[in-house]
C-alpha cells in the first residue's frame, strides 16, 4: 500500500487545464488547413495538386479552392511548395462542425460546431452518456477517443462518460467507414438508444469513408445509416480535437 502511495506522489498531477489553457501541440502537428488565393496557381499546378489528394478532398468551384475536412486525411501532400503556398496546415486543432457543409472549407474561416438547442441541452448538457460503436475503424480514432478517459483529459469532469450499453446511453460516437458487415449492428445499436439521442461521427472514415471512400465493402460513413449531429474530422483527430468538439456541442466552449 505504501508503495502505491509513494508511486502516486512520484507520478504527480497530470490533468491538463483545458479548456482554460491550451496544452501545447507538437511543432509538426497538422491542424486546420488555411487556403489562400489559388488564382496564383496555373491550371497545370492545380491539376497536379488535386491529383495528389488521396481522397479528392480538394475541389475547385466558381468561387475558388475548397477543401473538404470530412474527407481530408491531413497527410499534408498538398501543402507548401507544391501548392505555391496556397494551402498550409495550421496548428489549429479546432475542427468540429454541426453540418456536413460546414466542413467544406474556403479561405481562413470555419463555422465551428454550435451547441445543441436549449431543450436538448437541458436534458443532456450536464450528463452525457455515450456508447461508442466502431464500424470498421482502424483503432486509431478509437484509441484517441479512449485517451479522453485517462487522467490527462479526465473526460468525467465535464459530465461525459462512455457506457457499456446503448440502453444507458444518450447517444452514439461512431468511428469507421461503416463496413457492410457492421451496418446491421450499428442500426440495432442506434435503435436501442432512447430518445433524445445524438450521434457523433469521429474521423474521416466515419464522416466520408476516409481512405476507404467508395470501396464496395463500405458505406462511406455514418450518415449513410443514421442522422449525424456532430462531425469531428481528422485521421485520426487529435484527442483535443475530439474533446473540443464534445464541449462545443454541450455549450461548454463557445
Amino acid at each position, binding site marked *: 500500500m505504501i508503495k502505491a502511495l509513494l508511486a502516486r506522489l512520484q*507520478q504527480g498531477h497530470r490533468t491538463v487545464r483545458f479548456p482554460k489553457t491550451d496544452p501545447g501541440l507538437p511543432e509538426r502537428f497538422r491542424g486546420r488547413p488555411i487556403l489562400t488565393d489559388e488564382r496564383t496557381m496555373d491550371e497545370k499546378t492545380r491539376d497536379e495538386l488535386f491529383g495528389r489528394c488521396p481522397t479528392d478532398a480538394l475541389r475547385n468551384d466558381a468561387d475558388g479552392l475548397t477543401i473538404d475536412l470530412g474527407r481530408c486525411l491531413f497527410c*499534408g501532400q498538398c501543402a507548401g511548395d507544391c501548392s505555391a503556398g496556397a494551402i498550409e496546415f495550421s496548428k489549429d486543432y479546432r475542427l468540429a462542425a454541426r453540418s456536413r457543409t460546414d466542413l467544406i472549407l474556403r479561405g481562413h474561416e470555419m463555422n465551428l460546431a454550435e451547441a445543441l438547442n436549449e431543450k436538448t441541452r437541458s436534458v443532456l448538457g450536464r450528463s452525457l452518456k455515450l456508447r461508442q460503436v466502431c464500424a470498421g475503424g482502424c483503432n486509431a480514432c478509437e484509441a484517441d477517443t479512449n485517451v479522453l478517459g485517462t487522467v490527462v483529459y479526465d473526460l468525467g469532469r465535464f459530465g461525459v462518460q462512455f457506457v457499456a450499453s446503448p440502453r444507458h446511453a444518450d447517444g452514439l460516437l461512431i468511428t469507421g467507414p461503416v463496413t457492410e458487415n457492421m451496418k446491421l449492428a450499428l442500426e440495432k445499436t442506434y435503435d436501442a438508444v432512447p430518445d433524445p439521442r445524438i450521434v457523433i461521427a469521429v474521423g474521416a472514415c466515419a464522416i466520408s469513408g476516409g481512405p476507404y471512400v467508395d470501396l464496395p465493402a463500405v458505406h462511406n460513413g455514418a450518415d449513410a445509416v443514421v442522422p449525424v449531429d456532430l462531425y469531428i474530422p481528422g485521421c485520426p483527430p487529435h484527442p483535443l480535437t475530439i474533446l473540443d468538439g464534445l464541449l462545443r456541442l454541450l455549450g461548454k466552449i463557445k
Partner: protein
Amino acid sequence: MPASNSIPLHNGQAVDVEQIPVLKVNAFRNSVIDAVKSGMRIASLFAAPSNHDHLRLFAVLADDNAGSLSVLSSDVADKYPALTPDCTQAHLFEREIAEQWPVVPEGHPWLKPVRFHSPYLAGPDARGRKSEAHAAPSVMDFFKVTGEQVHEVAVGPVHAGIIEPGHFRFQCHGERVLNLEISLGYQYRGIERALLGGPDKRTLHYMQTIAGDTTIGHTTAYCQLAESLSGDTVSPRAQSLRGIAMELERVANHTGDLGALAGDVGYLPTSSFCGRIRGDFLNMTALMCGSRFGRGQVLPGGVGFDMTSEDSDLLAERLARSLKDLTVAADLLWNTPSVLARFEDTGTLQAQVCRELGMVGVPARACGVETDCRFNFPAGIYRFAQIHVSTGNTGDVFARAYVRWLEVQRSIAFIRDQLEALPDGRVRTQTKPLSPHKFGVSLVEGWRGEICHVAMTGPDGSLCHYKIVDPSFHNWTGLAMAMRDQQISDFPLCNKSFNLSYCGHDL
C-alpha cells in the same frame, strides 16, 4: 536449410515470379508439411490467379533458426487435398482461400467463413454460393457442446468498451469455458483487393490504416517490399529513424497493455499511470512527424520527416523521464501479490500448442518460443543494431505481461542508442517504379508480432497480387485455446493479454 523444391529468399528480397518452383499439388503439399514438421512456420499461404486461367497456391515458409524464407507454388483447379489435416498451421489460411476463390481444400475439418465477404470471382464459390450473395457476419454453425447444465454465451460484435467489433461464442459448464469460438470479419474493408493495380495515391493510406495502432509496422513492411520490387535503397539515417518510430510504437502499445491488464484485475494505480504514460510515448511519435500514430513518417524511399539535433535531445530527455515513470508503474504490478495472483496461471498456453498453431509475437515468446523478426530476419536498421529476444516460460497472462515489460526496456535502450549515433545524410531518396513480373516478401516485427507482406507485380509493374498477414491472423486461435478450462470471467484479462487486432485480421 530451405524447404525442399523451393526457392530461398531473405527478408526484403524480390525474385522473378518465374523463378518460383511450380510443383505438382502433392509435392507442394508434402514439401510444406515436411518443412513445418522440421520446425519451419507458414508465414503466408495464399492463392492468386496465374497466367493460364488457373489459381496458383503460394506458400512462404519461415525458418527462424536459419533466418531464411522459402517460397514454393502449385497450380490448382477447383479442389486440392487440404494441408490442414497434417499441418494445423494451415487451417485459417485454407479457410481464407476457400472464402476468396472457387477452390475447395478437400478434407479440411472446419471450412467456415473467415471474414464473411463476397467471393472474389463471379460464379459459385467453394461453398457453391453465388458471387452476389453476401454472407451475413457470424451466420454459421458454431461448435456446440451439449449436455446437462451446459450453456452458451454470445458476446459482440458491439462490446462494452471502446473496442473494435468481433463475436465470441463460449460453450460453458457453469463458470468453466469448454470452448471459445471467435468469429470476425466485421471490420472487413477489402484492402487487399483495393491495392491491386497500384501503387497509387491511396496505397500508403491503406497501409497506414490496415491496423491504425500498427501504422509504422505495416507501413514499414510495405515500404521495404516496394523498395525491393523497385530496387531502391534507403539511407542509413532513414533506416535509423524508421527503427526509432517502430520501437516507439512498440513501447506505447506495450505500455497501454500493461495499464489495461492492471485495469482488468482492478488494480487502478498502474492502470491510470500507464494510460497517461502511453500518451507520452504517442506524443514522442508526434514530435517526430506530427501524428501520434506515425502517419506520414514511413514512406517509400525513406521517411517523411528528419530530426534536428534539438528534436533528438528533446526526445531523449522525454524518453528518460517516461521510462522512470513507467518503471515505477510497472514495478507496482510485480510487487503486488493480488495482481500476481490474478496474472499467474491464468490463460496458460503450452509451447507445443503455440508451435502447432504457428503463433508469433508476444504470446509465442511468453511460452519460450524464440521468434522475433528483428532478430531472426533482420532488415533495415536491425541488421546493424540487434535487440535481444525477450521470452518467458510460463505461457500465462503473467508471462505475456512481463515479456512486454522486458521488450519496453530493450526498445527504449535501442532508441537511446540510435539517438546518440544518428547517421548523417538524406532521409529520403527518389523512388523508381516497381519492376514487372516480380515476387517479393517483407517481414517486420510489429509490436504484436510478425507482419508479413507479399506482393507480385504484373507486366507493367503494377501490383497484381498483394497478401497481408497481420500477427493477429496467426494468434486469434491461440486466444481461443488459452481460454479452455478457464473461468469465463477471466476472458477480458486473457483477451487483453493477447490484445490482438480485429481490423488487422479482417483487412
